[in-house]
C-alpha cells in the first residue's frame, strides 16, 4: 500500500512537472510581446480544491475533501484559509482503526519569487495555524505477546473515542503557476509541528485529520497538497 502511494507521488510530481514545463514555455513567449505594456497587478479572491485528496482516495483507504481560499492583500502577501475533513483507516499488523474529523487552517503565504513582467507565478513561504477535531475507533488488534503457546490472532474489541482534538502549526514551501486566465495550479510541501493534542486514555492518535500520520515520540509531521485554484477577478490595482 505504502509503495503504491509512494509511486503515485512520483508519477503526479512528474506529471505536474510536465504541465508546468509546458505552461512556462508558453508564457515565456508571451513575455516578449507584453514587455512594453503597462503591467497590471490583479488582486482577488482565489478558491480551490486540494486534488491530493482525490488521489489518496484511489491509492489509500481514505475519504476526504479540502477547500482552499486566499485573498491577496499586498503585492506579495496572501491571507489563506483551508478547511477540510479526513476519514482514514489504519490497517497495520497490530491495530485496525479509523480516524475521522475535520480541520481548519488559517495563515498567510509570502511570495518571494520575482516574476518577470506580466507573469503571475508564485514561489512562497507559508505559515498556518491549524486545529482539528476528530474521533477514533478501534476495531480489532493483535495482542503483543512473546509467548506463543496459545494461538495469537486478532481480538475483535470495538471501542470508540470521541471529542479528540489537536492544534499545530505548519511551515510551507510551495509554488503556484498560472495555467490559464484566472486558473492556477500549485503544490506545497508542509512541515507540521504539533502544539498539543488530546488523545484517549488507552489509545493513541495515529492519524490526525489535517495533520496526517503521527509518528511515535515525534512532534513533526509532513503533508503535501496539489491545488487547483480559480481566481474570482474582483479587484484590480
Amino acid at each position, binding site marked *: 500500500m505504502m509503495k503504491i502511494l509512494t509511486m503515485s507521488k*512520483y508519477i503526479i510530481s512528474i506529471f505536474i512537472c510536465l504541465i508546468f514545463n509546458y505552461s512556462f514555455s508558453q508564457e515565456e513567449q508571451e513575455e516578449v510581446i507584453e514587455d512594453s505594456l503597462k503591467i497590471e497587478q490583479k488582486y482577488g479572491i482565489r478558491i480551490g480544491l486540494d486534488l491530493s485528496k482525490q488521489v489518496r482516495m484511489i491509492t489509500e483507504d481514505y475519504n476526504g475533501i479540502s477547500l482552499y481560499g486566499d485573498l491577496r492583500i499586498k503585492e506579495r502577501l496572501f491571507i489563506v484559509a483551508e478547511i477540510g475533513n479526513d476519514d482514514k483507516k489504519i490497517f497495520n499488523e*497490530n491495530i485496525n482503526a479509523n480516524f475521522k474529523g475535520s480541520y481548519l487552517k488559517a495563515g498567510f503565504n509570502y511570495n518571494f519569487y520575482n516574476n518577470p513582467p506580466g507573469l503571475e507565478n508564485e514561489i512562497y513561504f507559508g505559515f498556518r495555524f491549524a486545529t482539528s477535531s476528530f474521533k477514533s475507533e478501534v476495531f480489532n488488534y493483535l495482542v*503483543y505477546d512473546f509467548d506463543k*503457546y496459545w494461538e495469537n490472532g486478532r*481480538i475483535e474489541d470495538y471501542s470508540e473515542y470521541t471529542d479528540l482534538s489537536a492544534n499545530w502549526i505548519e511551515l510551507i514551501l510551495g*509554488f503556484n503557476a498560472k495555467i490559464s486566465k484566472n486558473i492556477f495550479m500549485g503544490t506545497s*510541501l508542509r512541515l507540521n509541528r504539533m502544539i498539543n493534542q488530546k488523545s484517549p486514555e488507552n489509545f*493513541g492518535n495515529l492519524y490526525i485529520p489535517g495533520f496526517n500520520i503521527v*509518528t511515535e515520540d515525534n512532534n513533526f509531521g509532513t503533508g503535501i497538497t496539489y491545488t487547483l485554484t480559480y481566481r474570482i477577478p474582483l479587484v484590480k490595482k
Partner: protein
Amino acid sequence: MNFHYYLRGVLILFFLSSCEPDDICLESNTDTPNLIIKFLDFNSGENKPVVNLKIKGVDSENDFFIGTVDSISIPLSNYQNTTPFSFTKEFDSNQANEDLIYFNYVRNNVYISRSCGYKMEYEIENIIVENDNLNWIEDSIIEKRVVNDENSHHVKIYH
C-alpha cells in the same frame, strides 16, 4: 532566478518526503505478562519443587512444560476469561496424578504504541482446582491479584 530551478527544487523535496519512517516495535517494551506460580510445601510453607511436572493447556494439543520446578510462569488465554490447565505430577511413573486447574480472570487491554499495539493484563478472580478425590494440590492462594508484570509470583500452590 529561473522559476524552473525553484520548481525542480520543490519537486526534489517531494521525492524525499515520500520516504516515511517505519515504526518498529522494540523488544524492550514489556509484553503481555505470564502468570507466575510458586510451589510450596503444604505443611511447612517452604519452597518445594514438584517432581516431574507436566503442564498442558486443556484446550491445547501441545505440552507447555515438562520438568521438576518450584516455580513456573504460564500464559493465560487472551480470548476467554478462563484458562484451564492440566498439572500432572510424576507424569512418567505409575504414580502419575493429574489435577485440573481453572484460572478465572478479567482481561484488560493496555495500549503501548502504534508499532507494538496492545498488550493484555489480567485481574485474577479465582482459581479452582477440580476435585478428583486424589488431588495432589492441597491449596492455592492468590498472592497478587493484578497480573501486570513478571517481577514476582502471583499465585502460591501448596502440595
